[in-house]
């Protein structure tokens, strides 16, 4: 499986087929979930209609963590086995990951303003999320700041791995510290604790956004692989000996 995808051309073919499928799932799911979340689901008895922000907030927050986990996993694979495809997929997930993080922060702030009375508080969940955003930016900046992509890949792997220590902190900050933010009510051991009529659009939205992340990875990685291949293909003339060729060349060049 791993070695199958490590072959760039096989991965490219797979991504070419997978892209439209992922995009289709994303469109259908988000459409259904938006209708469900904005029109069908009841308003929260405490928070009123503001709770509908949940359908953006939770999926983006969840995916911001998943995307980074994916990047870290791919970086580990690339670090150990040096699979060229792993780097490219990790890179492709970075910009969407950062976008999801920004959206989770933004939707949280928009939601916090009416419910907490403050758009921002310096508690562990929010702060660690902000740090996750900076880690994403740092990861993207390393890719952007290198003149040589192979070099960027090697450095980015290491950064991604070290940055991963922030992920459990984000995830469990609500349990470890006293935060204003509520603890997990859906992705928790023992099953979700919210009402099914509010739950189903959320789950559908999560599926849709996950499909979107997959699409980003397929398309971004494909673009990089194709570009790499193109650059390599630019032929360059073989070198030749100037004098006493026999002394220099033991096998005649192809």
């Amino acid at each position, binding site marked *: 499986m791993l070695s199958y995808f490590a072959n760039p051309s096989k991965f490219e073919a797979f991504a070419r087929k997978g892209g439209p499928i992922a995009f289709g799932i994303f469109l259908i799911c988000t459409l259904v979930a938006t209708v469900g979340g904005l029109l069908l689901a009841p308003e929260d008895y405490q928070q009123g209609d503001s709770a509908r922000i949940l359908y953006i907030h939770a999926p983006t927050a969840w995916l911001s963590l998943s995307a980074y986990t994916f990047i870290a996993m791919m970086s580990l694979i690339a670090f150990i086995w040096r699979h060229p495809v792993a780097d490219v997929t990790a890179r492709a997930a970075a910009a969407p990951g950062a976008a999801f993080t920004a959206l989770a922060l933004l939707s949280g702030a928009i939601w916090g303003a009416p419910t907490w009375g*403050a*758009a*921002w*508080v*310096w*508690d562990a969940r929010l*702060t660690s999320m*902000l*740090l996750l955003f*900076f880690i994403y*930016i740092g990861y993207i*900046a390393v890719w*952007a*700041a290198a003149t040589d992509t192979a070099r960027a890949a090697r450095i980015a792997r290491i950064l991604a791995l070290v940055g991963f220590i922030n992920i459990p902190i984000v995830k469990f900050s609500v349990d470890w510290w006293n935060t204003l933010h509520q603890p997990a009510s859906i992705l928790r051991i023992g099953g979700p604790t919210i009402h099914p009529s509010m739950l189903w659009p959320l789950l559908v939205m999560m599926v849709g956004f996950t499909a979107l992340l997959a699409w980003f990875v397929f398309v971004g990685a494909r673009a990089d692989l194709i570009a790499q291949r193109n650059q390599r293909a630019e032929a360059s003339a073989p070198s030749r000996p100037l004098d006493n060729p026999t002394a220099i060349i033991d096998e005649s060049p192809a």
Partner: protein
Amino acid sequence: MSASPRFLRATFARDFAIATRSGGGWFYGLLFFALFATLSGLAIGPERASLAIAAPAIAWLATAFALQLASADCFESDFRDGTLRVLAAENESLAPYYVGKLLSLIATIGVPLICVIPVVFLMFGTPASDVSGAAALIIIGMPALLVIVLFAAAIATGLRAAGLLASLIGAPLAAAPLIFGVLSVKSLFERGVFWSPETMLVAALGLFFGVLLPPFSIAALRYGLE
């Protein structure tokens, strides 16, 4: 000189291109600002009272340091690769060059900073009604900070002790606008006065430094060459 505006434009265009390229300075100056504010918020902790006390100081310091970092080696590369020598020999005055640098600094770091300063105030719990006023106060202080950091960079250029001298010279100069800038924001928060005496002083300092420092910076650039 008919050549001057063109020379200014060319300097601006070149520096703007260099700064906005991937890995260019603008992005990092901005990020430094954000990181500085974030780490300060973290260090201060979640209590709203402490945050509110610290907000003006942190916003001003973050602005000053972001500008300082973005401009620190502003002339250094031109000096080291000889570009500055040629420009000094070609032109009676390095003023267009200086102005081009200043404008590119404003465009690449000043404007982005102006966009994020309000966010920092919000994160530090400043009431929404005060945020734009506080940001405006910092904008009033920016001219002074800009010419100061450019002056420090110009002085440092070509001297062996580049970074050292720049900060030695920049720091005392920046102290005055910073102190009165912080006080002006405080008086806005505490007494609701925008045009407090401190604000006037900051504006006056901007004018004073704005008139005084550019000629000295230009002179420093030229004499640094000889």
